[in-house]
């Protein structure tokens, strides 16, 4: 029997950290999700939540850490935790950062760049860990029995979704994607909010049958028309994606920094009601810091 996978949310907020009592439940740290399978650590994005993950890994007391980093893209809210990731300073740590195409060095370059002395006192080259770049080949990487695929998304500067297939389970991390620009019936979806939003076949195939889909659903339907082109999706569109792709559980992610816990609750409630009206069997919820699921 294969080892179970544990998925933990360390940062679920979009754009900028939002500490304070209004965001306590869903959390104020920016994007970071840990997928743990046996001794293998898979880390999706390095937003400010990564700092908390690093502290927790240090507490777990493993003699040697091997962690694999998959960045959706390199906007601030997805990389700012990296210089504060305690295991990066330990010579016993081995970190792998994944570039999405052969010969690409964008991830390494930008991780270096954000630690130049204008921004940060410690240089990337002074980190104690062994940090190695790896590349996807034909949009796929194999890590032992774990298969990871990537898919380019619609986001300013582009971003990538990752599908992790492990022990018969499938977990998809798909943040910072403006699904609404991909809709086959985009105009209709803006004019008639109740109309089912038709997602492109390639995306549906990538997500199909996921045990867990973690997807950017930053906006409400009412907010989105003022934010077109900013690179984020309506939560109700995520609901339609989950339903059409036969997803079992869907965690709406990358909550808007202007949203209090109560507003996130309302956004999630709306998406759940939409799924109910469609007779969907998907369980949809708002991703929140400190929640760990087992698969």
């Amino acid at each position, binding site marked *: 029997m294969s080892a179970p996978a*544990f998925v*933990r949310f360390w940062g679920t907020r979009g754009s900028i950290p939002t500490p304070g009592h209004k965001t*306590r*439940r869903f959390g104020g740290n920016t994007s970071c999700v840990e997928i743990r399978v046996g001794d293998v650590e898979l880390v999706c994005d390095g937003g400010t939540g990564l700092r908390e993950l690093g502290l927790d890994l240090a507490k777990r007391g493993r003699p040697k850490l091997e962690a694999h980093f998959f960045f959706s893209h390199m906007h601030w809210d997805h990389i700012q935790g990296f210089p504060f990731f305690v295991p990066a300073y330990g010579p016993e740590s081995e970190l792998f950062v994944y570039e999405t195409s052969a010969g690409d060095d964008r991830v390494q370059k930008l991780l270096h760049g954000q630690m130049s002395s204008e921004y940060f006192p410690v240089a990337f080259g002074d980190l104690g860990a062994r940090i190695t770049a790896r590349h996807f080949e034909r949009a796929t990487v194999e890590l032992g029995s774990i298969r990871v695929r990537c898919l380019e998304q619609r986001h300013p500067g582009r971003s990538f979704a990752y599908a992790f297939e492990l022990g018969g389970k499938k977990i998809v991390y798909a943040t910072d994607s403006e699904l609404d620009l991909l809709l086959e019936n985009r105009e209709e979806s803006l004019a008639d909010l109740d109309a089912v939003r038709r997602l492109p076949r390639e995306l549906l195939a990538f997500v199909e049958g996921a045990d867990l889909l973690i997807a950017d659903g930053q906006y409400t339907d009412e907010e989105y028309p003022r934010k077109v082109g900013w690179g984020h999706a309506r939560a109700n569109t995520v609901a339609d994606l989950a339903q059409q792709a036969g997803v079992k*559980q869907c965690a709406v992610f990358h909550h808007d920094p202007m949203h209090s816990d109560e507003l996130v609750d309302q956004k999630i409630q709306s998406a759940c009601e939409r799924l109910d009206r469609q007779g969907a069997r998907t*369980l949809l*919820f708002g991703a929140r*810091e*400190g*929640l*760990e*699921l*087992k698969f």
Partner: protein
Amino acid sequence: MSKSHEPDSDATISGDVSIVAGLPPSRKLPTLEQVRGPGAPRRIALALNETVVGRGTQANVTIDSALLSRRHVVFRRSGPELALSDLESANGVYVNGVKAHFAVLHEGDTIQVGDVVFVLHEAPE
């Protein structure tokens, strides 16, 4: 004393007070309000750093339900934070309807184990 010498009731009285830098940490305890299942309704104060809920006598809080494992779920306090962990129970732990292996908890969270439902209160009402 003539009336003109009585203090004006709206006036602030000047005087020495001792200035307090800080009070000891609150002794308030988080509480599980059991709203469904055997034994409900009742309130369970989480006075221990670790409180195990289950069907067996090894649990700190024993609930007579066949749907619970002997040691089903543990609630751990760490400073101001309260979290739960599923103790590899047969039927799982649900936080606000989501099956959770671990969860940091907040006021008003609904926690379900078998046929038992709790609502968490971070401090007494």
